C-alpha cells in the first residue's frame, strides 16, 4: 500500500510537467489548428529563463576585503553581487535563494513575448499549409532555438537549486499513518504539483469565466462565425498562443530544481508530450491534463523494482505502449471530440 501511494506521488510531478506541456500544445492546436513541434523548445526556454535570471541576480563586482587574506597574504578579493549593495546582505541573499520562484515573474512576460512573436512571425503563415508542413517548420524552429541556447549556455546541465526552505523531504507516510520513512517525498515536488494544479486551474478558469475566454472558446468551436460577428478572433488567438507558450515556459521554470536544465530537455519532453496529447484526444483540454497525469503515474509504476523484474525494460516503453493501445482501441483518445483531425 505504501509502495502504491509512493508511486502515485512520484508520478504526480512528472505527470504535472507532461500535463502542462500537453495543455499548451492542445491550446495551440485547438485554437489555431497548428501542430507545434517547437513546444518542447518553449519548455526549455522557460527553464533557461530561470538560469538567466539567477545569473542576472548574481551579477557581481569585486570588492577587496582587508580583513581576510588569501593564501599569498594579499587582501582577499570577494565577489559581491550588486543586489547586496542595493538591498542589504540578508535580503539580497534571500532574493538569490528564491531565484527559481522569482523567475515566474520574469518568465511570464518573456514567454508571452516569445509566443506572440513566434505566432506573428512564423506560425501565422502556416495556417493554410498541410499539417506536415507545420510540423516540419516548427521542428526546424525547435532545432534553431535549441542550438541558440546551446551556443550561449553550453551543452552541460546548469544546476538551479530550489530555495533553502524547500530543500529536503516531507515524510508523507508518517503524516497519513504509515511507518515513518516509508513514503518520503521532496518538498519541491509537492510545490511543483500544487503549482501545476493552480496553473491548470487558472487556465481553465480563464477560459470558462472571462469574456475573453468565452470568445476564445467560441472561436475554437467555429472560428468563421465568430469572425463574422465582427470579433477580431485572430488577435485573441495570438494572445492564446502567448499564454500557451507561457504555460510551457512556467512548467520549465519550476522544473529546474527537479532536473537541471540542459539544451535538449525540450526535445526529451516533446516526444512524450505529443504522445500525451494524442492519448488525451487532440483538441481536448481536460483530456490533455488527464492523460498527462495518467501517463506520468503509469511511468512511475512501471519503474518499480518489482515490475521491472517481471517485465524488464517496461519502464522505458510503457508510455509508448499505452499510447499504442489507446490509439488502437479508442481512436480519438481518452476524451477526444468527434471531427478533430479525423482526416
Amino acid at each position, binding site marked *: 500500500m505504501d509502495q502504491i501511494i509512493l508511486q502515485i506521488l512520484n508520478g504526480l510531478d512528472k505527470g504535472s510537467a507532461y500535463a502542462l506541456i500537453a495543455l499548451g500544445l492542445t491550446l495551440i492546436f485547438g485554437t489555431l489548428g497548428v501542430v507545434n513541434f517547437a513546444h518542447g523548445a518553449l519548455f526549455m526556454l522557460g527553464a533557461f529563463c530561470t538560469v538567466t535570471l539567477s545569473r542576472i541576480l548574481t551579477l557581481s563586482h569585486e570588492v577587496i576585503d582587508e580583513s581576510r587574506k588569501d593564501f599569498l597574504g594579499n587582501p582577499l578579493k570577494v565577489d559581491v553581487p550588486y543586489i547586496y549593495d542595493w538591498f542589504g546582505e540578508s535580503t539580497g541573499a534571500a532574493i538569490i535563494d528564491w531565484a527559481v520562484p522569482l523567475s515566474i515573474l520574469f518568465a511570464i512576460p518573456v514567454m508571452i513575448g516569445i509566443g506572440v512573436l513566434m505566432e506573428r512571425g*512564423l506560425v501565422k503563415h502556416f495556417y493554410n499549409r498541410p499539417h506536415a508542413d507545420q510540423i516540419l517548420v516548427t521542428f*526546424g524552429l525547435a532545432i534553431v532555438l535549441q*542550438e541558440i541556447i546551446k551556443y550561449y549556455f553550453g551543452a552541460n546541465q546548469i544546476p538551479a537549486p530550489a530555495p533553502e526552505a524547500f530543500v529536503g523531504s516531507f515524510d508523507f507516510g508518517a503524516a497519513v499513518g504509515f511507518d515513518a520513512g516509508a513514503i518520503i517525498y521532496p518538498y519541491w515536488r509537492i510545490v511543483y504539483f500544487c503549482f501545476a494544479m493552480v496553473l491548470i486551474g487558472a487556465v481553465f478558469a480563464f477560459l470558462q469565466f472571462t469574456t475573453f475566454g468565452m470568445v476564445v472558446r467560441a472561436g475554437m468551436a467555429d472560428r468563421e462565425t465568430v469572425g463574422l460577428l465582427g470579433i477580431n478572433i485572430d488577435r485573441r488567438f495570438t494572445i492564446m498562443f502567448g499564454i500557451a507558450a507561457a504555460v510551457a515556459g512556467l512548467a520549465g521554470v519550476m522544473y529546474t530544481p527537479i532536473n537541471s536544465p540542459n539544451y535538449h530537455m525540450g526535445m526529451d519532453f516533446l516526444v512524450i508530450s505529443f504522445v500525451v496529447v*494524442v492519448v488525451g484526444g487532440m483538441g481536448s483540454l481536460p483530456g490533455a491534463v488527464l492523460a498527462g497525469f495518467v501517463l506520468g503515474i503509469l511511468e512511475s509504476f512501471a519503474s518499480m523494482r518489482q515490475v521491472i523484474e517481471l517485465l524488464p*525494460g517496461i519502464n*522505458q516503453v510503457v508510455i509508448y505502449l499505452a499510447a499504442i493501445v489507446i490509439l488502437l482501441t479508442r481512436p480519438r483518445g481518452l476524451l477526444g471530440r468527434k471531427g478533430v483531425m479525423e*482526416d
Partner: protein
Amino acid sequence: MFGLDKKDTSLLLIVAALVALAPIILNPFPEGSALAQFNAGYPDLMQRFVIFGIFAIGFNILFGLTGYLSFGHAAFLGAGSYAGMWMMKLLTINVIPAIIFSTIIAGVISLAIGWISLRRSGIYFSILTLAFAQMAFALAASVLTPITGGETGLQTNLNDPRVLPSFLGGGASADGNIPKPSLFGIEMSASFELPVGSWVWTFNWGYYICAVMMLLAFYLAIRVFRSPFGLMLKAVKSNQQRMNYTGLNTRPYMLACFVISGMYAGLAGGLMAAMDPQVGAERMQWTASGEVVLMTILGGVGTLIGPVLGAGLIKYFENIFSKINDNLLHQWFSFLPDGLENFMVTIIHPFIGKGWHLTLGLMFMGIVIFLPGGLVEGGQRIKAMFKGKKAEKATKTTPAE
C-alpha cells in the same frame, strides 16, 4: 530501356554517370590548396552520400507517394544494421548475406509496425510510428543488450564463429586481425588512388558497392513511381476517402508501400554496418528519423531525384561545416582589415563547427517556408525564370497590332 520511358532512362543514366564519376566530380579542388577542405571525394563521406540516398529514396516512397509522414524510420535503419552485423558475426564476413538479411529483417519489422500504425492516418500515424521507434530505441539500449550490445553497441570480434568455409569469408582472418567486411576477399575499405596532376582521386571498393545498390534502389523507385501501384498510392495521397468510396481497399497498398519503404531503410542500415562494422542504438533515435525527413524535404518530396540530392547535401554540410574552425575563418577573411576580419569571424562563428546544427535548422526552416517543393522545385523555378525571360523576349519581338 529497362522498361522505362525516355525521360526516366536519361535520368537514370545521368544519375548513374554522376555516381560512377563521383570520386572525380566531388574532388574539384587540387590537393593542398586552400579550398581542399571543400572536397568531398573521400570514401567515408561518399559512402554516406549513397547510403543515406538509399534511406531517403525509401522514405520518399512512403512520404512522397502517400503523404504519410513516418517519424519512425530510424527503427528500420537500426534493425537492418543490427541484422547485418549479426550475419557478419555468425555467418561470414562477406557482405552479401548481411545486406540480404538486413533487408529481410527490416521488412518483417516494418510489416508488424505498419500493420498496426496504418490503422490511423495523419498526425496519429506519425505519433504511432514515433512511439514504435522510440520503443525500439529504448529496448535496444537497455533490455535487448544481449542482441544489440546496449549502450556500447555491436562490433565484429576476433572470436566470432563465422561458420561458413573460409573461401566464402567465414572463419578468422589469415593475419590474425579482426577480419574486415569484404566481398569475396576484396575488403570494403580497399581503394585505388589515382594521382592526376595535383589532384588525387580515390576509387573505393565499398563506395562502388553502395553505389550499385543505390542505383538498383533508384531504378526500383522509378518503377514504383511509374507503376499502377504507384498511381494507387498517389491517389491515396490526394484523396483517400474517395478511394474508399469507390470500393477499393487501400490498406494492402499502404502496407506494401510501408514495407517497401522499411526494406529500403533496412538495406541502408545493412550497408552502413558493412562499411563501418559497429552499430550503436543511437542510430534508432528519433533524431535520426527526423534527419531523413529533413533530407527528403530539402531535396523535394515526391520527386525521384530530390531525396538523393537532399541526402547528399545534408551529409556534405554536416561534414564540411563541422570541420571549419575559427583559424580557417581568419585565414579566409585575412584580406579584410583586422577589425572587420574579427567581426566577420564572430558573426559566422556560431554557424560552423559544433554549431552546424543551427545552420541546418535555419536552412531547413527556409526551405519549408519559401520552397516547400525543395531543391527540385527551386531548380524548376530557376528554369522557368529563364524560360519565362525567353518567352517574354519572344512576345516582345512579335509586332504589336
